[in-house]
Every structure is written in structure tokens, then in C-alpha cells.
């Protein structure tokens, strides 16, 4: 495989009511989700179908006993919190005390960016609608990962992988990659340590919240490699790698490279191509040290004794990937894989020679440039609240207030998508995964869809006594090519179910 594989992202947004720090976040998050659902004018709201969810399944081959699990890990119990499935195939819901947007399944990193960006637009719209409810206070949403007071919330990536790949190989080759990936994909943060008490700037929003190397948890003792094993697909053939170590990106290039390069490294692991063991000595500590050194000079010590910088370590992975793609595809390489490789090399070499030249591409560099500008112009230092505010407001989703949004609108960020593509992705699903079937059903048969999930759509039909569950266990079926004409010609959900069951 290349950069192409079934993938997706999930982002928990920061939420606040200015002037009301004690506002109930579960309530305000529900208001956000409900406001968007209401604005879509859905007469009936499909439930989430939990039948195939196994949050306690561990990739190492055992199940965590439910009574040993923290309440926050029991994500398969319907908490009654707001939840909607969108016509673009995405899920918008309340997770813990944050509104969360999970993209539909896509097949490449460029589409991952498009549908993730659609999520920013959806959140901004949701907040705008929520504010029109009489008596409501304005709710702000932030695409970041920490409040700088000890709390962190995630932006996760998911990659479908071959089940045959030994998990130990994934841990061995992915850990050094994840420890160093932040130099490309970090979103930048003002404040050091989990509570942000120490002054300074660091490359990653999330790094300081990671405490162990491998584990099942996502809310406590966060691990560099998360072992949750819920494939939402045939478990004999696939695992879903649930990646919890990334920052929420605003920059398209940061996110595109984050997912594109990770997908490539996974392909090399699946094909047993990585010939060198880059295992890092003390990976958790090293992760923090790299993040704390925006000068990029911090040395990483490998277990082999070799020392190199995070950028050089990434360059090693790049070199392997370049060889891998050349060996495997030669001139037949697809455009996106080629583009990811070219950009990855270009970004890494400029990180070596002149990091600030990436101010239009990488979140952490763009943010640092603004912050350094303030420090210089106003003679202020890292303890100054304005710098913390710049960090926070960079991630504000509102087009008029969000610093990323403002600068992007002025053309100050390089992009790989267009506004039209993003706007279309707000309502329409990707065409090449089962999200197409889900999204079209939600759009055309909203009143008949009782529930849906990644791997099913359940219909409640006037002419049938029992609910009709249509499993969609294969992420690459139910695509436009497979079901477009079927859905086009079925006027009602009853027609659709009759056609696919033949009864």
C-alpha cells in the first residue's frame, strides 16, 4: 500500500462560555450538537448503533474486565448525550465534556484534510446556531488540545491495517516515528508541563500529557501507542490503529503530512520493509524533550547508541519511505503518495536549514512566528497573558475571530484543498467508502433511519415489524460506484431494503 488506506480523524473541541468558567460543559456541548441537528431540519434523529463497539478490546489480544475499566472508557454505553449522524457520513456528538466530530471514512490523506476541515466549519455553524436560541450565552469552540491548566482532550487518527501485521512490529517501528513526528505535525503551545505553569513555548500541544509507551487508556496515563482494537470491519482481516498522540491541526499541510506520512510508515511496517531498528531510549522523556526545544537541536538517543535530532530521525523514515515507494511502484506511484513524499522531504530539509521558512505550512512555526513578533514588538515574555491568548485564539473556529482562520483567509497559509471542496464535504460523503451509503441514506431516507454506526444502518420501516439492520462491515463497499444507482432509483427506504434483500 501507499499513502492510500481507509482512514479518518476524530477531534474533541475545547468549549467555553466567556465569563462563565463554571458552565456545565456536558450541557453546552449538547447545545452545540443539538443546535446543528436542529438547523439541519431533521424530523427524526438516528441513534448511534453500539452493537459492534468493543472499547475494551486490546490489540495485544485480551479484553479489559469492565469492572477494572475507568468510567470514561465505557464508550459503548449510550449515555443519552447528544449525537447526530450527518449526511456527509460523519458523526457529531458529545464525548465526555466536549463536542466531537469524527470524519467519515476516507481513503487518502488529502480527503482526510477535506472532511476534517468540514468539521471546523460545522462546529463554527453549530456555535452560530446555538447563539440564536433565545436566552442562550455565546459558546466558543477551539480546535486545540489543552486548557493549560492540566486538562487535555484528544484529536485521534484511525488507520485500517492488515490484521496479519504483528502488533510488536507496529510498536517497534511506530514509536520512534511518533516521538519525532511532532516537528512536522505539532500545533505549538505556550506553557510547559501538564498545567502549563512553567514559561516557554513548545512544539506540541499534547506531548506533555503522554506518560507511558503502550496501553489501552486514552484519558489517564496516555500511551504513545494506543492498543484499542475495534476495527469496525472484519476483525479477521483488519485492525484499526487508533492513534491518540497527535495534535489537532489547523494547517492543512501539517495535517496532510501527519496522516500521509503515518500511512506510509504503516505500509512499510505491513510489508516488513523497515530494515533498521530506530528504537528510542526513554521514548516518553524524549517525546517531551523534543517538544520543549523549538530550536530543534535536542538529540535523541537510540537504543543502538546512535544520537540524532528529531528532524534527522524523521529524515531516516523519509529515506526508507522513498526507497519503499520506488521499489514497489516506480513510475506508477499515485499522485498523492508522490506529493506527500515531495512535501515531506522539502519540509524536513527546511526544518534543518531555516525552520521559520515553514511559517506558511506548519502550525507550530506559524504560531511561533506570531508569538515571537509580539515578544519583540511589545517587549513581553512567555508569562504574559497575551501570548497565552494568541495560543488559544489561534484555534478559535470562528472565521472572524480565529487567528488561523483570519490568516488563512488572507492567503497566508499554503493549502492543498479549496473552499468549494470543503463546503461540499460539509453535506456530502466521500464517494469511495461505505460512508457514501451511510451519508446518502441519512440524506434521502432520514425519517426511516432509526440508528446508524460505522458498520451499519438500521431502518425502521412502516411495512416491516422488526428493524432492518444493513451491516456495512467492509469499509470499501457501499461506495458511489456500488450503490449510487440503487439509491437514486429507490424513492423510499422500504424500496431500498426490498431491493437489497430481494424480498
Amino acid at each position, binding site marked *: 500500500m501507499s499513502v492510500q488506506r481507509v482512514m479518518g480523524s476524530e477531534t474533541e473541541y475545547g468549549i467555553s462560555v466567556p465569563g462563565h*468558567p463554571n458552565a456545565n460543559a456536558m450541557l453546552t456541548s449538547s447545545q452545540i450538537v443539538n443546535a446543528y441537528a436542529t438547523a439541519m431540519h431533521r424530523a427524526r434523529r438516528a441513534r448511534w448503533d453500539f452493537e459492534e463497539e468493543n472499547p475494551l478490546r486490546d490489540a495485544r489480544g485480551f479484553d479489559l474486565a469492565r469492572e477494572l475499566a475507568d468510567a470514561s472508557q465505557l464508550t459503548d454505553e449510550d449515555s443519552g448525550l447528544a449525537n447526530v449522524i450527518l449526511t456527509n457520513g460523519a458523526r457529531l456528538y458529545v464525548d465526555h*465534556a466536549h463536542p466531537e466530530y469524527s470524519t467519515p471514512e476516507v481513503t487518502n490523506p488529502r480527503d482526510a484534510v477535506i472532511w476534517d476541515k468540514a468539521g471546523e466549519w460545522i462546529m463554527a455553524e453549530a456555535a452560530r446556531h446555538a447563539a440564536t436560541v433565545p436566552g442562550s450565552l455565546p459558546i466558543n469552540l477551539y480546535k486545540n488540545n489543552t486548557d493549560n491548566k492540566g486538562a487535555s482532550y484528544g484529536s485521534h487518527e484511525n488507520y485500517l491495517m492488515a490484521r496479519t501485521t504483528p502488533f510488536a512490529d507496529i510498536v517497534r517501528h511506530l514509536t520512534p516515528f511518533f516521538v519525532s513526528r511532532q516537528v512536522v505535525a505539532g500545533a505549538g503551545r505556550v506553557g510547559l508541563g501538564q498545567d502549563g505553569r512553567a514559561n516557554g513555548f513548545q512544539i506540541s500541544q499534547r506531548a506533555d500529557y503522554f506518560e507511558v509507551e503502550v496501553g489501552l487508556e486514552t484519558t489517564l496515563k496516555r500511551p504513545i501507542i494506543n492498543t484499542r482494537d475495534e476495527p469496525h470491519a472484519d476483525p479477521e482481516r483488519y485492525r484499526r490503529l487508533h492513534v491518540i498522540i497527535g495534535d489537532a491541526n489547523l494547517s492543512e499541510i501539517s495535517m496532510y503530512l501527519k496522516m500521509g506520512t503515518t500511512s506510509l510508515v504503516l505500509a512499510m511496517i505491513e510489508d516488513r520493509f523497515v530494515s533498521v531498528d530506530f528504537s528510542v531510549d526513554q521514548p516518553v522523556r524524549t517525546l517531551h524533550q523534543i517538544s520543549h526545544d523549538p530550536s530543534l537541536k535536542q538529540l535523541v538517543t537510540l537504543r543502538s547508541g546512535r544520537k540524532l535530532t528529531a528532524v534527522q530521525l524523521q529524515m531516516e523514515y523519509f529515506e526508507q519511505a522513498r526507497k519503499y515507494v520506488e521499489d514497489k511502484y516506480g513510475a506508477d506511484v499515485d499522485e498523492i503518495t508522490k506529493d506527500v513524499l515531495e512535501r515531506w522531504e522539502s519540509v524536513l530539509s527546511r526544518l534543518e536549514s531555516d525552520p521559520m521558512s515553514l511559517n506558511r505550512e506548519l502550525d507550530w512555526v506559524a504560531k511561533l512566528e506570531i508569538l515571537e513578533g509580539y515578544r519583540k514588538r511589545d517587549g513581553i515574555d512567555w508569562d504574559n497573558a497575551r501570548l497565552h491568548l*494568541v495560543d488559544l485564539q489561534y484555534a478559535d473556529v470562528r472565521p472572524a475571530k480565529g487567528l488561523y482562520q483570519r490568516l488563512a483567509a488572507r492567503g497566508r497559509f499554503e493549502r*492543498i484543498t479549496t473552499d468549494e471542496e470543503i463546503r461540499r464535504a460539509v453535506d456530502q460523503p466521500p464517494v469511495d467508502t461505505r460512508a457514501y451509503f451511510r451519508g446518502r441514506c441519512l440524506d434521502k431516507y432520514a425519517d426511516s433511519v432509526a440508528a446508524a454506526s460505522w458498520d451499519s444502518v438500521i431502518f425502521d420501516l412502516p411495512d416491516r415489524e422488526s428493524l*432492518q439492520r444493513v451491516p456495512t462491515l467492509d469499509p470499501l*463497499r457501499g461506495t458511489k460506484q456500488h450503490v449510487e444507482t440503487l439509491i437514486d432509483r429507490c424513492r423510499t427506504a422500504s424500496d431500498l431494503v426490498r431491493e437489497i434483500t430481494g424480498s
Partner: protein
Amino acid sequence: MRVITVAAKDSGGQERASKQSEQVDDELVDETGDLKERHAKLSEDVDDVLDEIDEVLETDAESFVRSFVQKGGQ
């Protein structure tokens, strides 16, 4: 309850959105440019950006930042 699978034989033939938007050609990343000149230009440019940000930054930074309190998530 009856379980039904969406009928379709092949699972290949994916269509991809393939049209790459054109890359912004940017003098600031021109590697042949003189580094010093580039940095001077950069900081001039940054001043403009700061002016724009000044206009939209929330007032009372201290209390705004202090009141941004989140519950932990995943």
C-alpha cells in the same frame, strides 16, 4: 432480526478526488533567495499580521485565558 448485506460484488475501483489545488508559489520559500533579506521581509510581514491580530484579540487577555477551563477528554 434479519441481517442484510449491501449487495455488490467487487470492492475495487475507487474513485479519488484527484485534482490537486495549485501550489502557492511563494517567494519566501525560494531557496535561492538571500537569507538575511528574506528574514527582513519576514519581520515586516509579521508586523502587518500583528496589526491585524491586535484588532481581533479578545479584550482582557488575563481574565479570558484564566476562565478557559476544560474538563479532560481522551
